[in-house]
């Protein structure tokens, strides 16, 4: 008699939690357009890196379900959707190649490849800056630079999600 009651309570609680989670995860924005990041002077990365990072960033944005639709660079957006649309621009500010020798001899993160990038997330309609992100990624020097791009895209979207949800919370608090 007791076991089915407990089971029923557990199921109800689980269902409640999952629907609450689904409500929280519904995207707040309609579209997001990620632009190819520019590289600052002195940053020695291959031209394909920027292209690959762009693809990874779009892929991560889609996975994160931050927006309903991730559109390509230069695509038109309906005027009605513009206030709920984001544009992401950024610059790769620093890249250090790292050292395999240092990494092997010292360890503990010494000699790792390092990549720093800044990004701005603006609202499409009025170009208002919603958040500014600074991402710093460090990877093993033996790894391909594309792996670093993947890591950087993941970190960027994570930071963006955090910043936008904090921004939404403060807006809600004000209103």
């Amino acid at each position, binding site marked *: 008699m007791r076991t089915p009651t407990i089971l029923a309570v557990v199921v109800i609680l689980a269902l409640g939690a999952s629907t609450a989670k689904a409500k929280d995860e519904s995207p707040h924005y309609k579209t997001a357009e990620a632009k190819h990041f520019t590289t600052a002077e002195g940053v020695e990365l291959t031209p*394909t890196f920027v*292209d*690959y990072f*762009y*693809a*990874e960033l*779009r*892929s991560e944005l889609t996975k994160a379900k931050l927006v309903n639709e991730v*559109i*390509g*660079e*230069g*695509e*038109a957006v309906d005027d009605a959707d513009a206030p709920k649309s984001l544009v992401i621009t950024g610059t790769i500010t620093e890249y250090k190649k790292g050292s395999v020798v240092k990494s092997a001899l010292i360890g503990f993160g010494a000699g790792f490849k390092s990549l720093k990038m800044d990004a701005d997330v603006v609202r499409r309609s009025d170009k208002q800056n919603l958040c500014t992100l600074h991402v710093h990624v460090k990877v093993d020097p033996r790894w*391909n630079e*594309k*792996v670093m*791009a*993947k890591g950087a895209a993941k970190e960027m979207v994570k930071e963006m999600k955090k910043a936008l949800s904090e921004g939404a919370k403060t807006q809600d608090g004000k209103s």
Partner: protein
Amino acid sequence: MILGSGICATSAFLRVLLSVGLLGTAAPSATSDEPKPKPENTISVQLGEAVTPQKFAPAPKFWIADVTDRSGNPQPMLVMRERGGLFLDRQPTAIVKDALEQSLKAANLLAADAATADLVLRVYLFHFGLGSGSAVDFFGKVEFSTMVKNPKTGESQEVKAAGTSIGKPAFRKKTMQKNVQEDIEEALHDATRNFLRGTQLKEAVAALWKGIEVSPAVASGTATPPAR
């Protein structure tokens, strides 16, 4: 001294013999390693669902004159060399042409023939297939540039489009083929959408389509086909 030189001569002869032998064995293996298209390593890439283009007012009728391969790839149908190779069943130019025609036709923007078209499109394909990725996943990439031309005035404008996609990695050959196919299809869809919904096409149509009645100033911009 003589003995020494004799030994040297013998070893040199042996070295030549060995290298010739090595070359002889290496040459056939190199040719046999070259992947060949077979039904089991050929994939069919299609657009799938047609892309809905942006709204044009007034809506012109487009005609795709031709699609030219500008990738510089000697084997455009070979998508992947590793693991026995992976081939496309058609030329990438044909796939891109089909994708654009399918989407334009679905939106009733495709002219019946070149003579009745308001704007003629010449597509230059720069990349189709997989790009250099991280080796952890597949990086699908389709990139092309289009010359949009008004046949009546001779004016033309360039519109660029690119599509990317990140596909899941796979260990099994069958799964790998499926993932690569999905990845390229996604990139093709993305590139078609980027072209048909892009602001560049909107601006080109606005400039060229109005150009008939209003502005001859744009007429001077007869651009040359893009080259890489």
